[in-house]
C-alpha cells in the first residue's frame, strides 16, 4: 500500500488549524520508590481508588492503595522505565480496553495492545476493565446449551450459556485441552470466544494460538495474553480485561465464551502485588480479598434477561491443583463461586481415559436445564451409572466370581468408558453425541469388543451421515428423541450392525471377553 502524502499533509494541516492550546490541568505526584511492578507515590492527593495514573513515557498505572501519606500504584507496562522522582499524573479515568468486532481474531495484551503484528485495533468502543456484574433483575436462568463438543461433558456435566463451569485438575491432565476444544466447537454456533492466558509459558500460548488458527477458530476468537514473563500487575488484570471485551457482546444480545487459563496464576500474581503493597497476608499468604477478586470476576458471567437483549457470557475458569489437593485455598474458593466443576485426574489420564474427567465428583449445577431434550433422554442416569461402575470395578478387582448381572453391568461400564474417550481437537456435533451415547446406554455395544468401540462408533456415525440422513435431520430439527425418531434410530443401528458383520470389520464378541 502506498500512502498519499498530500492527503496526509492535509489531515495534519486540518489538525493544526483546529488546535487550540488550552491549559493542561493535571493533578500530580512524585514517585518515591519503584520496583517489582509497583510504585509508591507522594502527592496525588485527589486520586481515587482504581483510577488510572500516567507516568512519563506513557506508562500507565492503577491507584491500588490509598495511604495516609502516599499512594500505592501498580504499574501496567514496563516498570523499568519509571524512575524515582518522576512526575505521576492522575487521569481521572478508569482503565479501559478496546472492545467490539475489531478485537476478534486478534492476540492482545491485557491493555488491548496488539501482540500479533497486525496493526492497531480500529475500534472507537472501549469498556472499563472493572465493571459491576449485572444485578438480579437483569438476569434470567440459564436455559440454552453451550455445546463443548466433548461427549463426557455435554452428556454428564452439561454447560449452559451464562454458566460458570470450573475446570480443575493437576498439571498435565488436559485442562487447557477442554477449554480449547470448547472454543473449537463454537465454529458454527456464533458464540464469540475469548481465551485469557495468565502466567503461562509463552510457548504454550503460541501452541494454543496455532491450534486455534489451524482449526479456523481465530475467526471468532480473541486471545488475551499475560505470559509468565509479564509483570504481575498485567497478569492480575488480564482476566478482567478479557471479561470486559467479552461482556461487550453479552450486553449487545450476543453470546460469548471466555476461558480463563488459569486463575491460580492470577491469584499468585495478586498475592505478589498485595504483599509488595504490604497488605496483610492471610491463609497461604493470599490477601483477604482474594475471594472477592475471583467472585467479582466470575459474577460478570451471566445470562441476561430478554429485556436486556438475552445475551450471555459463559466462563470456563481453570484452576491447577497440587497433587489433587482440592481443599487448598484458591480451589475451594473458586469451586464455591462457580456453578459446577469438571474434575480431571492424572490416574485416569494416564490410564488412557481422555478427557480424564472423574464423573463421580464432577457436577454441573445449572446446565441440566440447558440440555437438549434428546441429550437429556439418552444421558439421564449416565453419570450415576458410571460412578456406580467405578465402585463396582474396584470391587471386582478382588477377583471373586461375579454373578451374571454384575458382570453385565461391568461390561456395559467398560464400554461406556471407551465410548466417552475422545481425541483432542475433535469436538463432536451434539446429534452425533446423542447417537453414540444412545447406542452405548441402550446396550448396543455390549457385544462389541472393548478395543473396537471407538471404531464401531466412528463407523456408525459415518453410516448415519451417509445412509440414514433422515434420522439426522429429524434429530437436528426437533432436538428431541420422540418415539418415531427412536424407531428410526433402532432401525439404523440394526442395519449398521448387519452391514458391519457383513464386511467382517468386526465380529460379535462374547459377553465379558474383554
Amino acid at each position, binding site marked *: 500500500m502506498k500512502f498519499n502524502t498530500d492527503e496526509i499533509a492535509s489531515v*495534519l494541516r486540518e489538525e493544526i488549524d483546529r488546535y487550540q492550546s488550552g491549559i493542561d*490541568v493535571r493533578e*500530580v505526584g512524585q*514517585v518515591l520508590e519503584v520496583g517489582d511492578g509497583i510504585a509508591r507515590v507522594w502527592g496525588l492527593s485527589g486520586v481515587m481508588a482504581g483510577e488510572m495514573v500516567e507516568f512519563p513515557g506513557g506508562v500507565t498505572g492503577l491507584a491500588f492503595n490509598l495511604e495516609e501519606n502516599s499512594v500505592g500504584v501498580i504499574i501496567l507496562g514496563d516498570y523499568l522505565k519509571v524512575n524515582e*522522582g518522576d512526575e505521576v*499524573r492522575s487521569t481521572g479515568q478508569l482503565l479501559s480496553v478496546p472492545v467490539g468486532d475489531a478485537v476478534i481474531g486478534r492476540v492482545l495484551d491485557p491493555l488491548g495492545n496488539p501482540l500479533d503484528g497486525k496493526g492497531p485495533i480500529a475500534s472507537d468502543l472501549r469498556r472499563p476493565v472493572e465493571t459491576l456484574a449485572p444485578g438480579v433483575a437483569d438476569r434470567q436462568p440459564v436455559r440454552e446449551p453451550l455445546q463443548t463438543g466433548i461427549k463426557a461433558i455435554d452428556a454428564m456435566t452439561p454447560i449452559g450459556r451464562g454458566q460458570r463451569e470450573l475446570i480443575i485438575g493437576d498439571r498435565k491432565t488436559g485442562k487447557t485441552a477442554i477449554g480449547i476444544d470448547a472454543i473449537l466447537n463454537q465454529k458454527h454456533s456464533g458464540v464469540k470466544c475469548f481465551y485469557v492466558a495468565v502466567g503461562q509459558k509463552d510457548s504454550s500460548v503460541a501452541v494454543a494460538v496455532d491450534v486455534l488458527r489451524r482449526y479456523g477458530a481465530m475467526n471468532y476468537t480473541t486471545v488475551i495474553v499475560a505470559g509468565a514473563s509479564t509483570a504481575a500487575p498485567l497478569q492480575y488484570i488480564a482476566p478482567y480485561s478479557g471479561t470486559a471485551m467479552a461482556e461487550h457482546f453479552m450486553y449487545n444480545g450476543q453470546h460469548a465464551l471466555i476461558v480463563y487459563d488459569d486463575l491460580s496464576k492470577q491469584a499468585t500474581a495478586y498475592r505478589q502485588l498485595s504483599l509488595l503493597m504490604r497488605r496483610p497476608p492471610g491463609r497461604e499468604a493470599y490477601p483477604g480479598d482474594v475471594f472477592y477478586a475471583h467472585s467479582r470476576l466470575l459474577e460478570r458471567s451471566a445470562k441476561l434477561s430478554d429485556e436486556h437483549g438475552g445475551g450471555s457470557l459463559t466462563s470456563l475458569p481453570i484452576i491447577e491443583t497440587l497433587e489433587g489437593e482440592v481443599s487448598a485455598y484458591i480451589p475451594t474458593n473458586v469451586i464455591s463461586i462457580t456453578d459446577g466443576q469438571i474434575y480431571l485426574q492424572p490416574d485416569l489420564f494416564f490410564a488412557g481415559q481422555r478427557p480424564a474427567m472423574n464423573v463421580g465428583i464432577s457436577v454441573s449445577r445449572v446446565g441440566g436445564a440447558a440440555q437438549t431434550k434428546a441429550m437429556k433422554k439418552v444421558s439421564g442416569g449416565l453419570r450415576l451409572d458410571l460412578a456406580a461402575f467405578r465402585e463396582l470395578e474396584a470391587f471386582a478387582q478382588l477377583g471373586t466370581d461375579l454373578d451374571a448381572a454384575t458382570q453385565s453391568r461391568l461390561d456395559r461400564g467398560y464400554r461406556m468408558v471407551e465410548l466417552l474417550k475422545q481425541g483432542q481437537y475433535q469436538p463432536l456435533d451434539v446429534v452425533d453425541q446423542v447417537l453414540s451415547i444412545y447406542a452405548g446406554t441402550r446396550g448396543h455395544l455390549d457385544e462389541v469388543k472393548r478395543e473396537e468401540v471407538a471404531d464401531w462408533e466412528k463407523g456408525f456415525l459415518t453410516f448415519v451421515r451417509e445412509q440414514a440422513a433422515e434420522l439426522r435431520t429429524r434429530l437436528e430439527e426437533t432436538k428431541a428423541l420422540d418415539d418415531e425418531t427412536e424407531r428410526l434410530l433402532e432401525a439404523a443401528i440394526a442395519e449398521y450392525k448387519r452391514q458391519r458383520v457383513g464386511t467382517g470389520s468386526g465380529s460379535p464378541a462374547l459377553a465379558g471377553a474383554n
Partner: protein
Amino acid sequence: MQTDHPDPASAIVEPLLAPRDVSVALIARVYAQAIVEAADKANCRDEVVSELKQLADEVLPRVPGLLALLESPRLGTSDKAAVVDRAVNGRVSETTRNTLQVLANHQRLGILPEIVAAVSCEVDRLAGRQQAIITTAQSLDDTQRQGLLAEVERCLGTALAARFTVNPDLLGGLVVRVEDTVYDQSVATGLVRLAERFKQRSIHEIQHRRDRLGSA
C-alpha cells in the same frame, strides 16, 4: 522542574517536592502544628517562625557538621540540650528556646530543617495561602513576578505562597503548580499534545479511510 533533593547540609527543604523520608515529613508536620500553637499562645508567632527560619537557613549551612552532630545518637539528649542552650540562650525568644530543648530531649534535632519547612507550610495554611511553584522559561524581574502572582491568584481565587523557578525546557509560557495540581500552559507541553493528536488522527484516518490516504 527541579526534582533533585537539596543537599541535606544546605538544610533547605522544598515544599511540594517529595520529602527525603515520608515518615519524617509526617513527624515534622506534627511538631510544626505544636510549635505554631505554642507560639500563638505566647503571642509571638512571627518572631518564632523567623527565628527558626534563620536557624535552619543561615546557621545550619554555615556550620558544617552541626546537623550531623545533632542527628548523631552518640551524643546524649542532655549533651544536646546543653549545646543548644549554650548556643541560643539569651539570643532567641523563650518559645524558640523551649522548642529546641523539646526537640533535643526527643532526639528530633536532626530533622530541624524539615520541621522548619513544615512550620512555614503550617503558617501559610492557617493564613489560607496554598503552596505554589511558578515555573517560567525565562527569569522574571520583581515587578513581573508581582504582576504574574497577582494574576494567578485572581484566576484561582486563592492566596498563594509562591516560589519562582526557571526552566528553559518549557520554551515559553508558564507552569503553575498549586499543591498537587499543575496548570500547564507551556509551549513544550502544547507541542507534545499536538504531536499526540497528529498520531491519533493519522491512525484514525488510516484505519477508517484507507482509500483516501493510500492506493494499493
